[in-house]
């Protein structure tokens, strides 16, 4: 495990580079090189969604995704979602609906919801459940999460582009 390589990418909008081991995962890259802890390894099998990271706009399981494969990519994590102090509408919705308990799975749910709403701005309850079935919450905050996704959908739709500036 001594082979290393240098990769370049944008991380939450900033150009970055890192010298990584070829075995390193995206979670390790974020944690060990950038002190970003919002993507968390839990099940280690890509089944719980706690390690969700957006790579070129697509949600991936950061515990399985090799850091080397992120070379040249656009990486977005939960930490990059709020602009200055202003939360993303999905984050606002999770806050307002109390859609979390221990909070460990929350970043994954929020990023997955963001991707869902990008693809489908008005998901039905069935579509929400289907889309988020790969994210697990052991505290069982699912009813509140479903509420939050619905609220986020309303928030995203009502936000005109001009609103984005604080």
């Amino acid at each position, binding site marked *: *495990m001594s082979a290393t390589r240098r990769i370049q990418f944008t991380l939450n909008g900033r150009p970055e580079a890192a010298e990584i*081991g070829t*075995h390193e995962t995206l979670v390790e890259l974020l*944690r060990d090189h950038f002190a*970003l*802890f*919002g*993507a*968390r390894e*839990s*099940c*280690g*099998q890509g*089944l*719980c969604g*706690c390690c969700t990271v957006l790579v070129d706009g697509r949600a991936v399981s950061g515990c399985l995704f090799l850091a080397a494969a992120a070379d040249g990519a656009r990486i977005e*994590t*939960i*930490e990059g*979602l*709020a602009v200055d102090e202003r*939360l993303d509408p999905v*984050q606002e919705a*999770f*806050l*307002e609906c*109390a859609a*979390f*308990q*221990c*909070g*460990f*799975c*929350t*970043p994954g749910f*929020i990023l997955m919801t963001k991707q869902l709403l990008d693809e489908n701005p008005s998901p039905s309850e069935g579509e*929400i*459940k*289907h889309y*988020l*079935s*790969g*994210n*697990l*919450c*052991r*505290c*069982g*905050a*699912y*009813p*509140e*999460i*479903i509420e939050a996704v619905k609220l986020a959908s309303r928030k995203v739709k009502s936000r005109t582009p001009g609103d984005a500036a604080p």
Partner: protein
Amino acid sequence: MSATAATSQVGRSVPRLEGRAKVTGRAEYIHNLRLPGMLHGKIFRSAVAHGRIRRIDIDAARRVPGVHAVFTSDDVRRLIPDPYYGPAFHDQPILAIDKVRHIGEPVAVVLAEDPHVAEEAARLIVAEYDELPAVTDEVEAMTSNVIVHDVLKPAGIFPDLKHLEGRKGTNIALDFRLRRGDAAKAFAEAAHVFEHTFRTQPVMHTPLEPFVSAAEPGDGTLTIYTASQSPSFVRIEIARLLGWPENRVRVKTAFLGGGFGAKLYIKLEALVAALALLARRPVKISLTMDEQFFTITKHPSTFRIKSAVAKDGRVTARECEVWWNGGAYADIGPRVTQKSGFTAAGPYDIDNVSIDSYALYTNRPPAGALRGFGIPQLVWAYESHTDVIARALGIDPVEFRRRNLLRDGRPQATGTMMKDAAIDKVLDRLVERLGWSRSFDRGHGTVKRGRGLAIGFKASIAPTTSVAILNIYADGSCALYCSTVDMGQGSDTAMAQIAAEALDIPAETVRVVHPDTDVTPYDMATLGSRSTYHMGHAVKRAAEDARAKIDALKGELGLPPGSNVPLADLFRRKYGMQAGNIVGVGSFVPGYASPDHATGLTPNATPFWMVGGTGAEVDVDTETGHVSVARLINVADVGTPINPRIVETQLSGGAIMQLGFTMQEQMEFAGGQLLNPNLADYKIPGMRDLPARIESEAIDAVEQGGPFGAKGVGESATFGVSPAIANAIDDAVGVRLMELPLTPEAVFRALRKDGR
């Protein structure tokens, strides 16, 4: 404290104080912790369920480049001569000594700066064992020749374990016995006698933040950072193991990524403490999801329950024998066995009761507390049993329950009088929500519909102590120091609300300092839904103490007690500058009387009673056995909620967790080997496993003894879920399942067994 609260602070759905940190991914967990010079530990585990260790070969692991050290129990014993720990028995070695007692027991540890190196090296360790026969079933363990521990070693903390000191040739780690009235006579005179045996399966908490602890040696001190629900216990136990005074051991926690009873007492803390002192470096161990399954589990149980019923449908006697599969180390199992033993006969007014509850050692991974402390296992049995009796006698299950219900002012099986336990109201509300008296659509074709309900209750924890400190700073802002651990249940917010109410300030302005035993005072642990009541009292008293000291200061400064001079001015007048503190202290020790050893009777079994019930409507596919829960209604008596919104989410969350234990979760063993220690093969509920409708309600109630009328809530919604669903399945298709989980296969087999 310049801002005065505009409204009442309790009873208000204050958003969680840490909400912003959690939605931005910046909440602090021990999972994130990195210490300068830190080594990572990887555990090598036993591959046999029971065996004598012949040889451990660590040479190849030691030679791996990057490995700092490899340690076994020989090394640990150089540091700690008697390295056994546990809350009830000192039975669990830090690393296996001479023997292994379950699959996955820690045998050796590799330390390296790179966790991948440690993992690779751990794979090179070879251990040879002389395998011994294993005992895995709790009922067999009662009489088996296979003895898991040669001699029993009670920890000395609990008086009711003293009689087990030095006992040999037994796997019984506690035998709780309760005798009330004359059960034998009542059975002899009964019009009807019913007897059933129910079982529950092994399951695991699976907190999504797996177990993680780190230790950092200092100059004659040791700091432990751990995802623990019981930092005060950890300090006391580590200090005992090391033979140090408590003040040289510091234990810090952060937010927990779930706990559910898993992260109690000692899990990795003793191991990282020993490793850090041996290596003279900080050491962190982060378990993987797989490893969690070998660390702590929920007790599988077998419950034989027998009832005598009179002609009028009154239960006149009940006999309960419960066997708890505690696994290889007792952990808190003996407490589960005793506390749940108090209420094994159910929330019914029965004059003649006989209860025997046994904690058994087996060669399974250890079992401990899991959201309900044994109560969900009991309610599963007694509420299934109750429905079977009602159906057999042709009495409506609700009517049968009402005829026998335990009401306030009546003695419970232990002899303790019931008070502030709204069992009747919880049942009434379930009946109302289910529309029990209305006609019910029974489905069509091959899909049949049914409905059922169940109610349960629980004695809370005692003896126990909580202490809190409220520190008011010179600008008038304040911080609350308490060792209650926020693992998602919202305790930071609830405690801030209680302090704020007593101080008449907005809850949002109270800073809650997380457990750090050098800073925050003693608390027994965050468990058993005790914090709102026990710590809530301590916090209220600390705030009242601070308030009294503010008034005293006003007096000292010649101001009338009601004067509204801002706090910052009071400090300035007293000290001549922005300086000083006002420190309020509060502690709480509830009343409790230990049960008599021979009869299990006590006039005061619990500080308060928890009551929870569930109603379920299900669709059963008679061709596949598939059960879908159309509606799950959870109703509880939580006293007066401090934070209604958080209470509601605790109820629905608890019910969803228990739904997993009811419908799908099961640790599968084959000859002592665990086949599914991962979330691919051990499925916890996801979005698509939710009932079509889930409803949660805290009934209008007051706990007279509680802070602002409140009591515990975290476990209440778990009680009734399993039997409510089994009762609904019986209602739909007329088959009775006696064992959890209620899988499609189990339902299908039961349907076919009846020749349908």
